[in-house]
């Protein structure tokens, strides 16, 4: 329940922001370090995060791989893996939400809020730590990918830019996870709420199958789905033709900006009220 108090925004005399930008960055880094240490001590979480995408790789590569025809002369394994990189960072947003909900539940957020520190640092620290975790997860996936026949076919620069875009999207989307965490405040509920929202996004996209194979009504959604636009850009960068970087990159960046603007803002607001 939300107390019927006047909100901070309605009271311009309210002094809530702490310190300057420098201190906010310092506090965020302190919390990134704390979250990573915490994660390192929960190896089961890391293993789980890495194993799920590996299962997806193996399933789609060997079970569906023969039945699914990638566009152009592309090998399906290349088509699939680029998609799975994006899918994995999308799912990892759930961990952002679970981490925040956990801190809320344990009263740790209360303590953070009773400290004269930047209000945004707790969110930034969580998103930042999850970005670093994604680096490791994506690295594992590239290795596993190469083991099952994947390769970057558009040069080193293309590969690096593709990976950067994947990580950037992961961070942008983790603001959605932060929103779920602060909205539902309970790790189990966050998980339960996230799946029905994220599954359709992931499967009704170009991640696993070419858009042309889908019924027309579904294509309408799939073509504007941010995951399609990000994945297609990643393919343009990592694999080259027939995938186009432009205008997909433009749309992908627009989506990412919108996601951060909307869910970042709502999350900060929810955090203040939490």
């Amino acid at each position, binding site marked *: *329940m*939300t*107390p*019927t*108090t*006047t909100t*901070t925004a309605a*009271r311009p*005399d*309210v*002094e*809530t*922001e*702490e310190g300057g930008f420098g*201190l906010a960055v*310092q*506090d965020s880094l*302190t*919390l990134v370090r*704390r979250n990573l*240490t*915490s*994660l390192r*001590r*929960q190896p089961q979480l890391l293993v789980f995060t890495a194993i799920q995408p590996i299962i997806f790789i193996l399933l789609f590569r060997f079970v569906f791989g023969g039945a699914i025809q990638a566009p152009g002369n592309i090998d399906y394994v290349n088509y699939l893996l680029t998609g799975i990189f994006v899918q994995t960072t999308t799912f990892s947003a759930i961990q952002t939400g679970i981490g925040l909900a956990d801190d809320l539940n*344990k*009263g*740790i957020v*209360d*303590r*953070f*809020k*009773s*400290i*004269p*520190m930047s209000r945004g640092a707790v969110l930034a620290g969580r998103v930042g730590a999850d970005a670093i975790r994604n680096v490791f997860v994506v690295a594992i996936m590239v290795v596993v990918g190469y083991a099952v026949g994947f390769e970057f076919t558009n040069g080193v620069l293309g590969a690096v830019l593709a990976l950067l875009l994947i990580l950037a999207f992961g961070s942008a989307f983790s603001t959605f996870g932060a929103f779920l965490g602060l909205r539902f405040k309970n790790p189990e509920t966050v998980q339960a709420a996230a799946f029905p929202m994220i599954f359709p996004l992931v499967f009704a996209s170009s991640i696993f199958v070419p858009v042309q194979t889908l019924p027309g009504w579904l294509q309408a959604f799939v073509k504007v789905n941010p995951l399609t636009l990000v994945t297609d850009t990643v393919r343009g960068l990592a694999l080259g033709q027939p995938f186009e970087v432009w205008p997909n990159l433009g749309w992908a960046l627009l989506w990412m900006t919108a996601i951060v603007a909307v869910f970042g803002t709502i999350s900060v607001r929810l955090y203040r009220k939490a």
Partner: protein
Amino acid sequence: MTDPAIVVEDVVVAYGETKALDGVSFEVPQGTVLGLLGPNGAGKTTAVRVLTTLLQPTSGTATVLGRDVVTKASAVRRTIGLAGQYAAVDENLTGRENIRLFGDLYHVKNPKQRAIDLLERFDLTDAADRSARTYSGGMRRRLDLAASLVNEPQVLFLDEPTTGLDPRSRLALWDVIEDLVSGGTTLLLTTQYLEEADRLADTIAVIDHGKVIAQGTAAELKAQVGGQVLDIRVRPADVSRAAEALRSVAGDEELKTDEAAGSLSLSAPDGGAFLVRAATALQDADVELDEISLRRPTLDDVFLTLTGSAMTGEPEEPA
């Protein structure tokens, strides 16, 4: 006289129709301990959340060291420490890392040395580099308390610091808290344990359904019950007969009975003389006495007298 450390004036916190706090006022002089005593759901945690800037009151004002908790929130945060209802520690971090974390966030001068000192002070040096997951309940609370002291707060808030602890750990934590306030820290402590308030607090505010229903020292509150209390134990089957016999000597005095436990208690305004009258009446009624004793009233009796019901409230509103 110096200004009070905490001033709460007519604070209301409303969740729609429900009022978690319904016009609460109290003051805590500097260097003293206020025990905010009440059952679950009485509004204790809400009061702490208002005073620690976590929740803005719907109406009314609250200040800590003269600073308004809403308009001067960050100034207030610099001077307070909070240990919440749950031991708010990251159990994946070690004790030392937990304290370092909060030292870093407060930007204290030498967070490393501060952690060493606090771990030593709270008897956690040996466990300092073990993950907090391995700590016992009492150790977690001590770690939580240590973390709340990182910034050397002038005003400390402890929300049910010993809830869920076994009696031995509770006694140990009481010692730690007593030691703390002897150094001059102002403390607001919430508790649902009457003996805890009795032991630690200079003054007690009894809170129920969002309202302060009584305020004073433990002795003053006990005086409200009046005189002493007579406790009697008989066989469970004899309770109703005993009650009848006692009514003849006690008149309108409020008589509490517990059939299952075979216990009866009533206030004994004139002490020893009343005990004799009661014992005689029971003997005349052929009730066999297991036990009869006079005692000073506890805060339990105070609560019963003030509210007409024992301290069994509804679950606390999730904060």
